[in-house]
């Protein structure tokens, strides 16, 4: 797979992994919708209209309106900005913070590595969802804090993943060969270690984004860090919960379904990538051994 060029990789994706292709399509769909909404949709997310409060789904308002007459479709699409930007920012932060740590720990080995591992293990005993919620609750509700809390937790994940990759790679042949060839440490890391370890981590990214998205939504739903934005999907579900039982089910349902769809897209993408990168080990053991049916 390494030999292929990027365009060929993208064009060939539907054939090689339908799951990854559909997942990618869903995610990109949300991105495009969030960017293009002002151009194509007549209603804005904040435009209250007293004449059309709490209208059910109709042609004019496909997802209905809320109690102040705002168009739900506009609000849901507006929420996609948060649903995309916050996990993305958290992911970037997590990778930027986490990978250097993991790289250093993996390279150093020994005591430093053991200590960091124990530390990560200890922190890992707190369910990540609760830790993220607590961090935001402690720091106070603001978009920055939400990104920071999610980013720190992503960083812990990526540090650990990177560390494992480095350790595994360290024992693999081509690093030893590179040492035997007389590579400097810096070149060893930049040319040989980093590209290969990053490739190993890349497949985890959609799943981590899905985690950040879900956690963001729980924050919104529980009213923690609602400053993330009025049209954040979790917060919208929270607002619509009571209306759901009085008959206005669309208020909570559609933002919830948007969450589900985007999350599903990310999960599909992750599963597809895993399928593409993981080949069954037995298939390499020869035909007789590899035949499974």
């Amino acid at each position, binding site marked *: 797979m390494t030999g292929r060029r990027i365009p060929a990789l993208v064009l060939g994706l539907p054939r090689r992994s339908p799951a990854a292709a559909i997942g990618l399509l869903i995610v990109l769909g949300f991105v495009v919708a969030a960017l293009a909404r002002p151009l194509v949709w007549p209603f804005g997310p904040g435009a209250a209209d007293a004449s059309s409060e709490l209208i059910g789904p109709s042609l004019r308002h496909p997802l209905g309106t809320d109690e102040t007459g705002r168009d739900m479709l506009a609000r849901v699409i507006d929420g996609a900005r948060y649903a995309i930007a916050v996990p993305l920012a958290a992911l970037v932060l997590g990778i930027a913070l986490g990978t250097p740590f993991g790289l250093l720990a993996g390279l150093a080995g020994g005591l430093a590595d053991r200590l960091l591992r*124990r*530390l990560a*293990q*200890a*922190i890992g*005993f*707190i*369910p*990540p*969802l*609760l*830790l993220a*919620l*607590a*961090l935001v*609750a*402690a*720091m*106070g509700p603001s978009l920055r804090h939400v990104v920071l809390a999610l980013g720190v937790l992503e960083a812990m994940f990526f540090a650990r993943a990177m560390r494992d990759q480095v350790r595994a790679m360290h024992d693999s042949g081509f690093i030893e060969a590179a040492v035997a060839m007389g590579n400097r440490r810096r070149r060893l890391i930049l040319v040989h270690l980093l590209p290969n370890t990053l490739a190993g981590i890349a497949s985890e990214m959609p799943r981590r984004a*899905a985690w950040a998205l*879900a956690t963001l*939504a*729980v924050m919104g*739903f*529980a*009213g*923690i860090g609602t400053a993330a934005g009025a049209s954040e999907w*979790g917060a919208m*579900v929270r607002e619509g*919960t009571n209306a*759901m*039982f009085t008959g206005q*089910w669309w208020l*909570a*349902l559609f933002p*919830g*379904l948007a*969450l*589900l769809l985007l*999350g*599903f897209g*990310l*999960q*599909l993408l992750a*599963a597809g990538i895993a399928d593409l990168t993981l080949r*069954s*080990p*037995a*298939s390499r*053991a020869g035909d*007789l*051994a*590899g*035949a*499974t*049916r």
Partner: protein
Amino acid sequence: MERPGRTILRLLGIAAFVFLVIAFICFMLIKLGAAPPVVLLGGPNPMPEERAQLIAEYGLNQPAVVQFIRYVVRTLAGEFGRSWQTGATVADDLLARLPATLELMVYALLLGALIGIPAGVAAAFSRGRAEERTARGAGLVGAAMPSFLLALLLLLVFFRWLDLSPAPSGRLSVVLTPPPTITGSYFIDAILMQDAAAARSALGQLILPVLTLALLIAAQLTLQVRTAILMQLDTAHFAYARAQGMSRDMLTGIAMRGAAPSIWAAFCGQCAALLGTTAVIEYVFAWGGVGQYGLEAMSRGDFAVMQAFILLSAALSLLVHLMHAGVRRVARLRIRRA
């Protein structure tokens, strides 16, 4: 080979380290807070005497190190402070609410495993067929499903539309009085007290939250079990056994035995992370357990509760971790004995 004394010492050392790290994080929650600690611990408008007491209790005018040591000592003594929302001590509040949460979690785990493990096994064995795609797709949808959305959807269908289940108003119909506490589970206690009405009501209230949690667990387990079994199916020894003409039952047995450690790890992983999801579900169903208590404390900034809740969640997953390691150790000893 291993001296038990040394092993125990080592374990104690690790436990102490883990506790200190987690205590530090809980302690830091206050330091991260935007408001002064007195407000965080005593509520928006603490009385002057309350204020003085808090400062004395926590040593708030002393250096941070001293505060941390005090916090550790207090925590070890089981003192978690007072909730400014309920006015009671956090320890009492937690103890009163714990049975409700445990009841929910235990049933959900059992039901989740009962659905998820067979589904995962079936998915793996029907590799490449429609059944697998269905099970895997369902697993992925479940993995992407926001917990609160599933709860609301179930409520919408079974409570609002079909009117089959009671309102999400806690563990028991509001018109009934709870049975006296024996095990802490309203359902079991009601049965023990032969209170049919209470038992029926408790069961009715349980169904939807347990189902929600169980479905979420089952979705994850399906995916994890499927992967674990598939890895077994891809081994050369499995192919060999199949080629030797073993019956389907024997093959299933071989794959299950091989995958058992992974499945056990997946199950324990679900246990460890469960309190977070449970909190959200309790919140939706107004369950009145520790999860709802903790979540509301977080959204209102009741820091003493928040700290204790995080500690409790860590303690629970530490317990699960020990259970996981213990079983694995026993299983490995069984192998090594040969």
